[in-house]
């Protein structure tokens, strides 16, 4: 039930490694304020669309853009370790695993947040199969009236609300062991959300919410895919485009870093084949050449 204090490294990031601007935010951000930065951009989904059409003919598990997005975030966290951090109090700590959180919508309108560990080391199919298993399990649990949620709901509101606040406060201020009940408050720096569900409106602007945890302070959200006009080699072309939103926190990173992180995601998502297995391609592979050509925003 109780695990070690991993995936956190035991020592806080040395203050000399924390830019003064970030320290200013750390020391002066009053409780309840929001030092968030949201960077919105677009992703050419041609590669993903073709990849899924071809791979869903032979794969053992149904593949959607979601596992591709999870792995892309994992690879970007590996390349930009400054994002693989969380706060305890006023100090930043690095994770020594590459994990993500992702929300799962349950039939009873509840939401579960699932921890996916070592996301950079799993293939798309492994991620997809694990997520289907998790969703099946959560769905069956949610349908049982005597599950944890059912019992929690029977408590008086002032008790359950106090428990919620305490869990957040403990998670934000103490380096406690990670267990099954607090894994989604302690285990990953990022909440990854794929919102490309059917009948969703085009996602042209998005500011992700964040509850009081100082763990998953990074958010990556990918919206639905729509045919859009873009400029390629000076010509207008119609491509399947989805909008991507990255929320960072100025107590950990700045806009320059967020922009580069977002660009890395665009590159990886634009070429899912090249990034399916461990080693990313070099600077001259088609993925990065295409990314350079597609730097212009949609018309």
């Amino acid at each position: 039930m109780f695990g070690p204090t991993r995936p956190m490294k035991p020592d806080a990031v040395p203050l000399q490694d924390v830019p003064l601007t970030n320290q200013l935010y750390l020391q002066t951000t009053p409780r309840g304020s929001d030092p968030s930065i949201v960077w919105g951009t677009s992703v050419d989904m041609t590669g993903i669309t073709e990849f899924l059409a071809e791979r869903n003919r032979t794969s053992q598990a149904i593949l959607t853009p979601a596992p591709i997005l999870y792995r892309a975030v994992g690879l970007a966290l590996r390349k930009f370790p400054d994002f693989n951090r969380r706060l305890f109090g006023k100090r930043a700590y690095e994770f020594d695993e590459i994990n993500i959180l992702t929300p799962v919508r349950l039939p009873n309108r509840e939401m579960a947040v699932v921890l996916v560990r070592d996301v950079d080391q799993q293939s798309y199919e492994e991620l997809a199969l694990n997520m289907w298993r998790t969703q099946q399990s959560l769905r069956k649990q949610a349908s049982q009236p005597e599950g944890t949620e059912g019992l929690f709901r029977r408590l008086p509101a002032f008790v359950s609300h106090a428990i919620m606040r305490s869990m957040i406060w403990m998670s934000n201020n103490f380096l406690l062991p990670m267990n099954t009940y607090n894994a989604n408050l302690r285990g990953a720096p990022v909440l990854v959300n794929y919102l490309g569900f059917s009948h969703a409106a085009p996602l042209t602007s998005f500011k992700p919410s964040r509850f009081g945890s100082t763990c998953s302070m990074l958010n990556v959200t990918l919206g639905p895919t729509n045919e859009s006009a873009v400029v390629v080699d000076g010509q207008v072309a119609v491509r399947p485009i989805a909008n991507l939103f990255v929320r960072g926190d100025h107590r950990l990173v700045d806009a320059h870093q967020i922009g580069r992180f977002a660009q890395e995601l665009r590159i990886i998502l634009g070429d899912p084949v090249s990034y399916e297995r461990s080693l990313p391609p070099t600077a001259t592979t088609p993925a990065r050449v295409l990314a350079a050509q597609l730097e212009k925003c949609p018309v």
Partner: protein
Amino acid sequence: MTDHQILADELICYLNSHYPQETEILAATDLFAAGVIDSLVIMDLMAHIEARYEIDFNPEDISPANFRTVDQLVELIHHKQLAVA
């Protein structure tokens, strides 16, 4: 009508009413190509089928081979029902 056709018609009716597309979903419609399939639809469809036909899906059942068309989904349901019987 055969059992297969009855079951297929029920599923088609469910999909067309809950997830209407520009063109009507038929028994042989490629649900991936038609853009019907996403994770929410799959979970919802599985919950509906499990409750309606009293079967249980395994995570390994969530494969493209089983969910590509309504016909293939009906085959899976029949297979599950026989296993229960």
